[in-house]
């Protein structure tokens, strides 16, 4: 059997170059030159779950940074919350391990030029994808401000992924309680021409509602359950407005204009609609 040549998402055996464990997160540098060349902010990769996880045995991860100028060592920085489950399994990898990646997956951000700054908000591991967006806006010269929200305490290890973004353009703070989240986001939206939010669904929804009330365009990166990430299974349904139709989160998303999402039908796993 022969395998077809193509330009779309593909398997690429990445090589783990470095793993760093922080208080709350594990970050790995993985060499994957093909994906590094193609991947855009908003897009993601899948990594195989270790034996004993799944099926489905793949986890979706958005890169925090992409290194394109290092030849065969060009690759991605992937970040996951430390845990015994799910992508926390990155913590079991060692330098030299092969990682059967598939990518790039999904559709990238298509941020329009707007008057005013683009406010990029990343919560928890969403801070990773936020930094990749910020880095590409920096390259493109678009005015932006990046706000990362991570678990307390916030110290020099809190947001381990922020080089190469200049620190002046990034704020890192502890994720506020739900009541304070609304006022915090309102302050950020007040100064913005558009908002990008990468956060757990309930926080993303609040952020969207704050933006809508202020008529600030809001772009949301959603992370629905994804069994395949490549458009085969329809597990990643995202209800689109006015409701009762579903987009494929992995192919049509993961980035959606907030107005397009039928939020009332988007229930996180285990929460009754």
């Amino acid at each position: 059997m022969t395998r077809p040549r193509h330009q779309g998402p593909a398997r690429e055996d990445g090589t783990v170059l470095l793993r760093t464990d922080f208080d709350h997160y594990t970050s790995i540098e993985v060499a994957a030159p093909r994906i590094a060349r193609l991947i855009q902010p908003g897009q993601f990769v899948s990594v195989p779950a270790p034996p004993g996880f799944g099926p489905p045995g793949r986890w979706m991860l958005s890169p925090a940074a992409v290194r394109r100028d290092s030849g065969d060592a060009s690759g991605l920085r992937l970040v996951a919350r430390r845990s015994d489950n799910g992508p926390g399994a990155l913590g079991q990898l060692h330098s030299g391990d092969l990682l059967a990646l598939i990518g790039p997956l999904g559709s990238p951000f298509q941020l329009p030029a707007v008057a005013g700054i683009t406010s990029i908000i990343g919560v928890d591991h969403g801070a990773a994808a936020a930094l990749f967006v910020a880095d590409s806006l920096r390259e493109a010269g678009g005015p932006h401000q990046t706000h990362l929200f991570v678990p307390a305490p916030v110290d020099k290890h809190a947001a381990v992924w922020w080089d190469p973004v200049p620190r002046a353009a990034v704020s890192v703070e502890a994720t506020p309680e739900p009541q304070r989240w609304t006022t915090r986001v309102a302050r950020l939206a007040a100064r913005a021409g558009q908002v990008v939010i990468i956060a757990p669904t309930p926080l993303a929804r609040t952020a969207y509602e704050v933006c809508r009330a202020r008529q600030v365009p809001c772009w949301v990166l959603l992370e629905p359950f994804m069994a395949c990430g490549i458009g085969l299974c329809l597990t990643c349904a995202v209800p689109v407005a006015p409701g009762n139709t579903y987009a494929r989160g992995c192919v049509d998303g993961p980035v959606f204009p907030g107005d397009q999402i039928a939020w009332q039908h988007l229930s996180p796993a285990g929460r009754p609609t």
Partner: protein
Amino acid sequence: MTLHPDDVDLTTDLAGLRLSTPLVLASGTAMYGREISTFLNLAETGAIATKSVLARPWPGLPPARAATTPAGMLNSIGLQGEGIRTLLDEHLPWLAKQGATTLVSIAGHSIDEYATCAKAIAEHHQPVDTLEINISCPNVEDQDRVFARNPDAAARVVAAVRTVLPHTRITAKLSPDVADITEIARACVDAGADALSLINTLLGAAIHPRTLRPTLSHTFGGLSGPAIKPVAVRCIWQVHQALPHIPVLGGGGVRRGQDALDLTAAGASAVSIGTVNFEEPDAAVRITAELRTLLASHGIARYRDAIGVAHRPLEPR
């Protein structure tokens, strides 16, 4: 003399449908072929069973639609799809252009809906050679009872489609969630099925550890993956024993060549792979190669000679 894997003949036959290799991409796990074709050459894959379609576009169920369990996954997609017309107008011509061998899967929420799908096929200029009828659907005219769980209901679906499509090869896809699968198998064959596909997913449920509420919005979902392989082997065995002349497309939990060989030995004439495609979209290539090597190691020169071999007594060496 040892047999070289390259010398193994993998061709097989499903009620007259010739397959170059026995591996079939299971319905609902490869959509209509486009996405997986960037990983697999469809012309070199045994066949693809397209995602089941209804008579009209259908939204499916709200999220959450899937859950992970220790050895399988649960899904409740609810037959989201574009409907039979888009399949006929857009996807089947594309698949034909790729040189893919295709099983067209249809579904319905009533006997009329299955018949409507069959009529659309009969009236369309693009001929359909092989149909897989997914009878694991709730019958809205009978308190949402699943057709596949009752021999009369299953037979009525097959008969309705057979009446409209007298010359099309029909395989009926059975559910394992029944007391006696041979009873349903017989009913489908008597109603006009040329072959049987088994098994579809088993009904299951999961409780979310954080909320202690059902993980799936629909509470129940179909369990697939390695967890269900022993059930598939059992069902294939029983049906092959009861109806040895009816070809079976076996599936359920196949991840490796050994799994494909086990289902074949139990009585399958070809083997479908589903959930494994999600994590390894080119799994068909690997599993086919493994199957070839295994057959060679058993000294079996033709895949067809392995079909149902487990039902024959071991010959003394």
